[in-house]
């Protein structure tokens, strides 16, 4: 996930080797390389190429045309949606950073109390999918009947409302309360690798703890901040669920809503493709910009070795920081979760906690009466598990080939694995639809197309985990096996695999949770028999039956939380803040 991986891959991939005869190149490792390349072509190169080709293709004649771009960007409203999206993305990055940075610093570098409690709270933001956070906030901050407004009116006797979720600010808040988790994890990891020498120097020169943090500590983790900011931006602009819930009532058109319009009848894949290309270019440009900024300075302080790491003593400020952490966890997890569960057990979500309002009917409906929700829960969990497994195994094989430099040009594979990182989920769905749903491949309505798309979408996470794991294992252990006569596969089975169990299981869990809740890619790829729970929930949100969809959301959260708890028990609590 971090961009340092990309850089490493680049510098190692170009290693030179002595020239060998043509036939000698067909070693098992070369075959593995070919196989992996083929897989990546299917998952990444073909869909993206198709997207580019389609954007220049006339839907009727099949010839070259620029008309799709004119259709896509010829209307002021369509251009406005793109501008709105960039604006929204920037605002979400800033707000997420305001949430994540103080909490990450507090949890890793200070003597803030109850750190594990805060970590667990932040982890809750990872488990709650964005659309459920959004539903929670609609119940909290609906302009007239939201809980916050009603409590305010009850306390003050006023009849005015103070918050309105159906606004730009509401949209940004709902995005940020979900997305700050990733930032928290990446920035925490960087903080944990710093040693205290430079901070000590600042202290000796007379800087207080806050000044030291601002002038020394934060600049040192700038690469992580920039990397996670970029990631947050990309994820944010590509989310479908939250805009569908909030930006339509807020009258704030964004790209994903516009793409959905192109995808409605008459289906305009070519226009949708053309509309997506600038988005891809913008994300690629941002990635480049980030690397340019980082390339100019040295950040060698983040070596990960040596030095001593001491916690900053904040004095009474530690309680201020803890209070702020509680506030963030409250906004992102506790408050939306509370109203969601209340709604799930209520006859009417506005009814509150009274016995006469208590009912189990909503659960009964979503579990037993609704035709597709039961099946959808099973499908989602199954797809999440399969995608996570395939992505982790694929990424592991590729990391091994890349890290051990088994073949020339293997670095290209690493680049490809990270490429989906810059492809918005909804664009990925369009690309997959164009290549694999239509004849001759005709995978529409199968589990296969969903699994392929999910594997692609989460490959970067898997690859980051996998290559960090492989890098941590020194080749000398495998060399020992080979000197003693074992083959490479034997060495992998007996040495590498056992050592990688833990990081791989952690990576699996980091993919399983979002994959089982994935919406942005699934939305255009599901068929009636392959519905996933997120799509069922989205269909339910259209009707605004908050109690029923809260019940289904609660069921989903309970299952996912249970699986994660089992994972944490097996892996240890700190798996999400690993050094990568």
């Amino acid at each position, binding site marked *: 996930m971090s961009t340092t991986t990309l850089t490493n891959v680049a510098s190692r991939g170009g290693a030179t080797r002595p020239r060998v005869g043509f036939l000698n190149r067909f070693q098992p490792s070369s075959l593995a390389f070919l196989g992996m390349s083929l897989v990546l072509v299917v998952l990444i190169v073909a869909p993206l190429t198709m997207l580019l080709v389609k954007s220049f293709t006339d839907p009727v004649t099949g010839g070259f045309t620029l008309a799709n771009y004119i259709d896509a960007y010829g209307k002021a409203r369509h251009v406005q949606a793109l501008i709105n999206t960039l604006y929204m993305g920037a605002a979400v990055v800033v707000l997420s950073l305001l949430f994540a940075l103080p909490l990450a610093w507090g949890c890793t570098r200070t003597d803030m109390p109850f750190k594990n409690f805060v970590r667990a709270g932040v982890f809750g933001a990872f488990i709650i999918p964005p659309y459920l956070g959004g539903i929670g906030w609609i119940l909290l901050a609906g302009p007239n009947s939201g809980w916050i407004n009603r409590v305010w009116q009850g306390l003050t006797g006023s009849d005015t409302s103070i918050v309105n979720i159906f606004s730009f600010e509401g949209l940004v808040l709902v995005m940020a309360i979900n997305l700050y988790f990733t930032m928290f994890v990446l920035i925490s990891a960087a903080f944990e690798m710093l040693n205290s020498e430079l901070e000590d120097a600042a202290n000796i020169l007379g800087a207080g703890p806050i000044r030291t943090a601002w002038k020394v500590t934060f600049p040192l983790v700038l690469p992580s901040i920039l990397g996670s900011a970029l990631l947050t931006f990309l994820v944010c602009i590509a989310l479908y669920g939250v805009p569908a819930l909030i930006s*339509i009532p807020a009258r704030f058109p964004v790209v994903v809503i516009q793409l959905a319009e192109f995808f409605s009848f008459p289906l305009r894949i070519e226009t949708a493709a053309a509309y997506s290309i600038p988005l891809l270019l913008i994300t690629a440009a941002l990635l480049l910009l980030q690397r340019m900024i980082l390339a100019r300075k040295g950040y060698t302080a983040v070596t990960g070795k040596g030095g001593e790491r001491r916690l900053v003593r904040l004095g009474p400020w530690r309680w201020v920081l803890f209070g702020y952490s509680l506030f963030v966890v409250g906004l992102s997890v506790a408050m939306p979760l509370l109203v969601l569960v209340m709604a799930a057990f209520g006859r009417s979500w506005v009814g509150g906690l009274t016995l006469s309002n208590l009912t189990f009917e909503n659960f009964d409906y979503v579990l037993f009466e609704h035709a597709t929700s039961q099946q959808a829960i099973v499908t989602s969990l199954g797809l999440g598990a399969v995608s996570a497994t395939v992505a982790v195994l694929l990424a592991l094989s590729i990391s091994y080939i890349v890290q051990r430099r088994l073949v020339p040009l293997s670095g290209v594979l690493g680049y490809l694995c990270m490429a989906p990182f810059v492809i918005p989920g909804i664009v990925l769905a369009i690309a997959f639809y164009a290549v694999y749903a239509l004849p001759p491949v005709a995978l529409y309505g199968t589990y296969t197309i969903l699994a392929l798309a999910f594997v692609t979408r989460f490959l970067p996470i898997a690859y980051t985990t996998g290559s960090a794991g492989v890098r941590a294992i020194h080749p000398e252990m495998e060399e020992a096996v080979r000197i003693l006569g074992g083959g490479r596969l034997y060495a992998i089975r007996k040495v590498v695999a056992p050592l990688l169990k833990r990081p791989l299981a952690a990576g699996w869990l980091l993919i399983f949770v979002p994959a089982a809740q994935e919406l942005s890619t699934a939305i255009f790829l599901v068929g009636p028999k392959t519905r996933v729970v997120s799509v069922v929930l989205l269909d339910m949100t259209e009707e605004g039956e908050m109690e029923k969809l809260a019940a289904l959301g609660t069921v989903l959260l309970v299952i996912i939380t249970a699986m994660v708890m089992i994972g944490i028990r097996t892996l240890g609590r700190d798996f999400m803040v690993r050094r990568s």
Partner: protein
Amino acid sequence: MTIRIGTVAAAAICAGLASAPAWAQDYQPWEQELYDAAKSEGGVVWYVSQTTSEMANALCAEFTARYPGVNCDAIRATGSVTFQRVMQEVQANAVQGDVYSSNDDTDFMEMQKYDALAAYTPHNIEYMLPSMKAAGNQDGYWYASNISPYGIVYNTDLVSADEAPKSWKDLLDPKWKDQLAIAHPGFSGSMSMFTVALEELYGWEYFEKLEANKPQIGRSVSDGYNLVVSGERKIAIAPITLALGGKMNGKPVDIVLPEDGLMLPPSGTGLLAAAPHPNAGKLFEEFLLGKEAAEFLAGQNRYPLRGDVPTAEGVPSIANVPMITANPETAAQKVGEATEMFRDTFGI
């Protein structure tokens, strides 16, 4: 799925123990034939935007109760989302749905251009109200399958009957600023019909004035109804049957039949030409027009489609109420443009 199979099995056992002969006698010969063929197909997939998902699932359960061994999966979403899914299947040559129900009959005309519909005239059509029979396609590619008029729904805790708007024109009164909920014609099929019909009635000016009241725009008309139930909004444009059902269940809602005409969207159902379960699809179409479904609808305060089933008490007769509707033939040309204009006027 397991539970549903369980339910089906339980229903089958009950039928076997108690009422198997009754069931068997109940079937017409053609019905028995369809039922047998449907059983070997397993079940029907019903794409529907005509009803709420709750109603769709309840109808499906009724269907399976009448025809044990034939499953029914209702996939409910707004009109254009459902239509997009169906057409995506048609164009991908991978049709997986069997029966399609919409509040916007122009969908069926589009589908005919792709030869996506199968002609099938249900046997039960002879019991239909004559007006309903006439509203369908004369070649049997689709038939009228729902009477769900749209009126004004208001929250009785927040608005008195006197205060409530009396007509579509009253919605333009500034006192409803920030208090009205409507659907988006880009999602809702019935809202796009409403947009075409009101534009014909009052011109586009109507929507420009409506925008001054800043209505909350949802995706489905049911969303507007639920916003009124929760008190988030005071009034909404919504199906009156939905609100009547809520009223009978004690929810704080009531309806107004607008003086300038109840809006009746042209609601049809058709069988897909490439349906993977054609017999189950036909059986389901028969069921929707059958007496059991009509009685079920009447019991839910809906309008039954058959002359031999009376409307439930408390449901206003719509026989003598002024009605407006969009003619599918002319609406087909206007609907795209009207949706674009809506997007420009309302900014979303």
